[in-house]
C-alpha cells in the first residue's frame, strides 16, 4: 500500500508492506540515524518524533503514520548547525558509542518542547525509555539540563 509521510519537513509518497514498521520504512529510505536495537520497544534506540511526540518507531505500524509528521535525528540540525541538545551532548561527554544517542536526543527534544525547565528527575523520566549501556546516564542528564539552560537563555535574547 502507499502512504504519505512527512519526514523532517519533506513530504514523501512511500510504498510499504501493510504490516511494516515505521522503523523499517525510515531506515530503508536512508534515515539510518534511526537505530535498530531490539525491535520490541524496550531500548528506545529507534525513537522518532511522530506529530511532535517521541515514540518507538519499531512499534509504530508505518500505515498508522499516514499523513503524519515524523522528525528523525537527521532533521534536528539546521543548515549544519546542531540542535542545542545535540551540541550539549557533545560538550558534556554524553556520547560514548553513540548508538543510543539519536533516540535519546529525540526524547530530550520532546521533553524540552513541553517543559523548558525540567528537574533532573523529570529529565531522567523523559529518557527512561532510552537504554544506554555505555554512559550510566549521568552525563546525558547533565547534557539535557545544559541544553535546557542554553535554550532558555537564547529565548531571552
Amino acid at each position, binding site marked *: 500500500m502507499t502512504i504519505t509521510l512527512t519526514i523532517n519537513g519533506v513530504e514523501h509518497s512511500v510504498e510499504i508492506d501493510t504490516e511494516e514498521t515505521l522503523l523499517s520504512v525510515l531506515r530503508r529510505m536512508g534515515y539510518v540515524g534511526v537505530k535498530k536495537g531490539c525491535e520490541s520497544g524496550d531500548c528506545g534506540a529507534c525513537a522518532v518524533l511522530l506529530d511532535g511526540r517521541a515514540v518507538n518507531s519499531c512499534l509504530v505500524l508505518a500505515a498508522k503514520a499516514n499523513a503524519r509528521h515524523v522528525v528523525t*535525528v537527521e532533521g534536528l540540525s539546521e543548515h549544519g548547525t546542531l540542535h542545542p541538545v545535540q551540541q550539549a551532548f*557533545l560538550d558534556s561527554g554524553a556520547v*560514548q558509542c553513540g548508538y543510543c544517542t539519536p533516540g535519546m536526543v529525540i526524547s530530550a527534544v520532546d521533553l524540552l518542547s513541553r517543559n523548558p525547565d525540567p528537574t533532573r528527575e523529570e529529565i531522567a523520566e523523559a529518557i527512561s*525509555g532510552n*537504554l544506554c549501556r555505555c554512559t*550510566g546516564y549521568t552525563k546525558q542528564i547533565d547534557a539535557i539540563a545544559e541544553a535546557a539552560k542554553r535554550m532558555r537563555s537564547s529565548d531571552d535574547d
Partner: protein
Amino acid sequence: MTDHDHEVFAVVGKSERKVDGRGLVSGKPMFVEDELPAGTLHIRILGSPHAHARILSLDTSEAEAVPGVHCVLTHENTPATRHTTAGQGYPEPSPYDTRMFDSKVRFVGDRVAAVAAESIGAAEEALGKIRVEYEELPAVLSIDEARREGAPVIHDEDDSTGIYDATRNIVADVDIDVGDVSKGFLTSDEIVEVTCETQYAQHTPIEPHTVLSDLDPAGRLVLKTSTQVPFHVRRIVAQALGIPIRQIRVIKPRVGGGFGTKQEVLLEDLAGWVTLQTGRPALLTLSRKEEFVSSRTRHPMRIRVKLGARRDGVLHAIEMEALSNTGAYGSHGLTVLANAGSKTLPLYNKAPNAHFYGQAVYTNLPVGGAYRGYGATQGYFPLETAMDELAQRLNLDPVTVRQRNHIRVGEGSPIFEKLGEGREGVSQTIKSCELAWCIAEGAERIGWFEKRGRRLRDEDGIHGIGMSIMMQGSGIPEIDMGAATIKMNEDGSFNLLIGATDIGTGSDTILAQIAAEVLGVPLEKILVTSSDTDHTPFDVGAYASSTTYVSGMAVQRAAEQVRDQIVAVAAPMLATDQSDLRLAGQSVVASDGQTVTLARVCERAMYESDQFQIGATASCVPSESPPPFLANYAEVAVDPETGHVKVLHYVAAVDCGVAINPQLAEGQMEGALVNGIGYALTEEMVVSSRGRVRNPSLFDYKIPSALDIPKIEVVFADSYEPTGPMGAKSVGEIGINGPIPTIANAIFDAVGVRLRQTPFTAERILAAMQNR
C-alpha cells in the same frame, strides 16, 4: 596527594570533545548496517532447539527452493576447521573446539544451519523449511552436573585441541600457590570462609553483533564488522575459511557497544563464506534474542574464598577456589578463570601464603566470553565480602583492614608472575598507587564514619553503607602489542593510523590527544584512522584495559620519532642545533625565540629539499601491567518489608594514573558502575530445566534505566604512572567490579544479612532477612 615531576599538559588532561562525536549526534551513517551495497543478501541462522543433540540428517532441499534463497549452509557444505572464536593473541589460550557448523549441537541456540537470501523474509521462510533429524542426548546444565563422574561428554570429537580434559568436560585447570596456606591458616588468629555464586548475565550492547561482508574489485574479502578485535578477526577468519590472511581486509567502523561480547569472532567467518560462495555482499546481524542466547555472556562462577588473618587484621593466608561455567564452548574459559585470581589476590600482597585453584567446565548452556572485568568481577564478590566479614569478626573498621593490607608503591606480589593469562604471568613492582588517598577520600564523601552502623530509617527503608577496594590491570604484559603510524601533511596536520579499536570508549580521541601533545598541536590537527587491517598497523584490540597504556605508548613513541624528524628538518632552517629546538604552538621553537611553523617545515620536506615523507611507525609491548586502583563506597536503603534495595549514593575514588581525557575517563567509570549495579541487583538470564533461556529480551532481562541510577560521584586521584604514556594507566574495566561487593557490604550494614548469590533481588534479600 603526591608531587609529580611532570610537565603541565596542553592537550592531554583536557576534556576534549570526541573526534567522532559530531557524526554520532547527527545520526550520520557510521555503523555497519547503515550503508549496505546494492544486492546485499541477508543471512539468518537456525538455532538448535535442544541443549545437547547429534544432527543425524539435514534436508535443505525445500529451503533452497524458496524464491530469493542463494545458499543454505550446514556442516555438510562448510569448512570443518576447528578454531576458537576468542579474539586473543596467537596462539590463543582458548581451545580450538568450534566449527562454523558442527554435526553436534551443544546448547539451545547453537548453530544448526544458515540461509542467505535476497530478503529477511525469504531467509526466514527458508529457515522454517529446513528439516533436521536430531538424536537428543542427555544434557549437562550446571557446573556440578558437568563434574559428576560419568557425566555426558560435551566435546567428544577427536579434532578439538587445547581442552584440558574433554572426557571430564574440563576446559581449563589452574593451580598455583605461594608459601603454604594450610600452615598459614593454622597459624592465623581468625578465619573467614565464604562461597559466592554469580549468575548468567549479558552485555546487552545496544547494537547487536553485525557484520557486512563483500568482495573488493580485486576479489578480496572485505569484512566490515562491529568488533573489538579486527586483527584477530582477520587471522581467525583466514584460519576458519582456509584462505590466506592477505585475502582478507577487516574494517571496524563505529561500534554500538562491546563490553567484551565483541572480543569474539562470532559471525565473520559465516558471512565471509556466504560472500565467497555467492559473490554477493552479505549482512548478518543478530536479533536481540540471539544476542542474549547465541552470542556471549558473563561466565557464571562459584568461588570460595578463605582468609586467615592476625588479630590486627593483616592477612596471613588467602585461598581462592573458583569454578567457572564456560558454557558449550571454551572461548576465554581459561583466561577468565585465571583472572579471577590474578587481578584480585595481588591486591592483598601482605599474605605470605596464597593458593588459587580452579576449573572451567563445559555445560550445555550459553557460551561465556569476555565481559568487562573478566573474572575479577566475579572474584571480588567473595574476596571483598570476606574482608568485610573479617573486619566485623575482629571488631575493626573495614576501612582499617583494607588500609593495613593493600599493596603499595615499591611492592610486588608473587601472584603477578605465577598467574597470568592462563599461563605464567610477569613479575612487576607497583610504581603508582594512590589507593590510600582513594580510600580516605571516598570515606569522607560518603560519610563513612558518620553514617555506618546507624541504620537510619526513612521512606526508602533502612540505610546502610558499604565499601570495597580493588585493582585491575593495564594490558597483558609481554603479550599484547599495539602500533601506531603517524605521517605529516603540509598544512601542519598529521594522519594518525592506529590499529587500536574505539568501541565507543573514545580511544580515537585520547590517542589523538597524546599525539597532539607530543607534536605541539591542537587536537583538530590530528586526523585519526583506526582499525582497518589494510591501512592501520597491528593492535590486539580493545580488551584487557590495554588501549591507553599500550596503544597510547605506541602513539607516544611514533609521535616522538616524528617530532625528531621535524626538528632535524627545522634545525638548518633556523640555523641552530636540534638540541635547541622544541615543538609548541604548531611551530618549532628555538631557545632564542625563533620559530618556524610546522606547515613550513613539512612543505620544505615534501617539495623543496632532501624530500621525504615525515612519518614514523612505532610499537609497544608492555613489560608490566600497572594496575589502576579503586575504592568504592555505597549508601543503600533496604525496604524491610519487601527486601527491595535502592542504591542512593555511590562514590568511586579511582587511581588511573593521569587521565588523558578526564570527561571520557569519568564516563568510562560511570558506565561501568551502572552496568555493575545492574549485574548486582536486577540482571539475570533465567534458564529452564531443559537449558532454554526463558527471558531473552530487554523486556524481561532488566538493565538499569535512567531512573534507576544513584547519585554517582567519581573522583580521580592525582597520580602518575612513570611507565605509562603521559603517566596514564587504564580505566576501562575496573569500575564494573565495585558494585557487587560494595552493595553486599552495605546491605549487611543496613539489615545484617550476608548475601552470597547475585543478583541481590528483593526476594533474595527478604528471604535472607527472614532466615537471619
